């Protein structure tokens, strides 16, 4: 959306998720969704860093942010699926799951 973030989808089996995790190098942070929670509540990244969102749950999730200038949406993620979000602009994003609003993650993007 608006070229500020990019979404890369990988339809992953459990083994592929592990592979993706192993591949997550510098500038990519892994955030798991498990038991209807994000594995971390706050994270600080640099401009052009990415977050790998992995659905480790047995239910579907729908990660998104409507924070101004930081909007993005991962379409429905079924169990085992993972997606990468690249943050291209400085700012703060309140990330939630649209289905489970108790799931919250604050992403701070620094220069």
């Amino acid at each position, binding site marked *: 959306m608006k070229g500020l973030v990019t979404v890369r989808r990988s339809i992953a089996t459990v083994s592929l998720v592990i592979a993706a995790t192993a591949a997550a190098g510098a500038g990519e942070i892994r955030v798991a969704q498990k038991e209807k929670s994000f594995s971390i509540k706050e994270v600080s990244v640099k401009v052009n860093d990415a977050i790998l969102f992995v659905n480790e749950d047995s239910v*579907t999730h*729908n990660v998104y942010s409507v924070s101004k200038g930081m909007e993005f*949406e991962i379409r429905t993620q*079924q169990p085992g699926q993972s997606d990468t979000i690249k943050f291209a602009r400085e700012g703060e994003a309140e990330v939630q799951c*649209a*289905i*489970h*609003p*108790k799931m919250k993650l604050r992403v701070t993007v620094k220069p």
Partner: protein
Amino acid sequence: MRRRATLAVVVGGLALLGTAAAGAFPADVASQAAAPDVLKTKYQRPSAIPFPSDNGYTKEREALGRMLFFDPRLSGSNFISCASCHNPAFSWGDALPRAIGHGMKELGRRSPTILNAAWSETLFWDGRARSLEEQALGPVKSPGEMNQDLEQLIYKLGRIPGYVQLFRVAYPGEGLTIPNVAKAIATFERTVVSGIAPFDQWIAGNETAISAQAKWGFLLFNTKARCAVCHQGWNFTDGSFHDIGLPTTDPGRGELLPKLVRMKHAFKTPTLRNVDRRGPYMHDGSVKTLAEVVEVYDVGGVPRESRSLEIKRLGLTAEEKDALVAFMKTLTSADAPIALPELPR
């Protein structure tokens, strides 16, 4: 370790269900009576009501909020109170398919119960309020509901000396303000908690508190019937939003999040506490009985792009459906009647 234990529960539960489906129920149901202990630990009641740090509990706030909740002078007509739709005699609902607002006009959605609202992450069927404080004045000022201008409300309450004094005591240094009307109502609402039901007694160890059929229903609820995917934990909701496939044109949460496909026709998962006293069901009151609710989920509703991926055809037998209803009936508490407050004049 925990993951392994949970898995064992599910497998064990399905094995028991298999026995019953083969025709052994109800003669063999005694063997199913002991629901796995691990599963039961997920349904323990909380020990305390959560209150926010910027609106902590005091007796004075609760008492003031109770008065405001039952006071029809919070409406433009001076005739509708919060309790008109959230009636304690109907488990804090109104027993109508859709709420009736200002001028006796029917609204689009059913009045939700306020039972256990203290644990809600979002309020309203579409989750548009993030706290009870944010929610409480929504219906008051809505032209279709209580139709009360808020500035006018402060003027009206300010002419009732009893209220002015009560606000001074409840919110020292602030007194009667629009935010404090919301805060007092929210404080009272948080104290409205469903009482101990037979289900809770069973969870606490009383094996005779619920029937063998209801125990089987509890297992089904957590396994084949998939209810606990969303109706999870002691309050029987995880606060999640789903389009469950009802034939509705109401956009639901999609109105707030129009770009998110799955939020179209999505509504908040309601609590199931005291549910057998709170029909008709669903956001629009379109389903009359719990047995019919189970039928709706068994079929899985209207297939469409927005429908939740958790909704699947269940293939429940008649006996399994009966057991689910029997289980849900154990969630009703025999609470003491609510005393109405005397309102200041």
